[in-house]
């Protein structure tokens, strides 16, 4: 699995990611015909990272927020039966929300709150994955391994020299549908 954020080489030592690696959200599934289906979900992942600077006045900044991810996947099941292996592919979108930064310096330890704009608030990518679907009672459960290749970074470390969201993302997901 992959951490959501990557750091620039120069500042790697001063960056402390404390991002939650879990993601959760509602999902909607449409069965189109026997083997095809469509899946929409809105996955939320909170993030937090702390940077510290030692050049000039020692300072630190803690940034918190959330990443909303919206995959829209076309799913194809290989077999009809109690256990149905499937593959899924489609576009995915990610938006950064509720970004709050808290700055402190050694001289003035009172935190200064701000809401910085990310390099890009929304990015798009392509997701592909595969898994199994089976039923337990009325529940349909689908464990899935999903890879997403993002076209850009929400936070671009080449511009900020600090931190960026990763372009390659692997996720282990479980969908429970009613």
């Amino acid at each position, binding site marked *: 699995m992959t951490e959501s954020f990557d750091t620039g080489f120069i500042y790697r030592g001063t960056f402390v990611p404390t991002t939650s690696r879990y993601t959760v959200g509602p999902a909607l599934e*449409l069965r*189109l*015909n026997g*083997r095809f289906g*469509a899946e929409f979900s809105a996955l939320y992942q909170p993030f937090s990272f702390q940077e510290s600077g030692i050049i000039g006045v020692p300072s630190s900044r803690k940034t918190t927020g959330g990443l909303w991810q919206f995959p829209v996947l076309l799913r194809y099941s290989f077999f009809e039966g109690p256990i149905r292996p499937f593959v899924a592919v489609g576009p995915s979108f990610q938006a950064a929300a509720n970004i709050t930064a808290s700055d402190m310096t050694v001289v003035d330890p009172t935190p200064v709150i701000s809401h910085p704009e990310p390099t890009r608030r929304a990015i798009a990518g392509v997701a592909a994955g595969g898994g199994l679907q089976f039923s337990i009672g009325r529940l349909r459960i689908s464990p899935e391994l999903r890879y997403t290749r993002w076209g850009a970074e929400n936070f671009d470390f080449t511009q900020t020299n600090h931190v960026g969201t990763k372009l390659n993302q692997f996720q*282990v*997901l479980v969908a*429970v549908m009613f």
Partner: protein
Amino acid sequence: MLVRLVLPQFLLILQGRQRWKIRFFGPYGNMPRRTDLRAFVTRMSANYLSQFTSACGKRPSARCLGSAMVFLACLSAGMGELYAQRISIGAEAGVS
């Protein structure tokens, strides 16, 4: 030929003017024999071609043709029945 066969039916579905319950047919079932399809579409075309041309103009617009191309792509991919048979809601969770 395929456009000629399928396009009028598709446009009628879009317009909501079809008189009969029409199910699109794909390679996974409900595919009639060619003779059946030809007779069916000939009848459909004769009855409704005037409505289709009046809706889209004398020449089919780029929008109509674009919609038809999307439909044909879906049809060739095996998605002959374009309506959802079942909609499920739930939750998804995981780690990254």
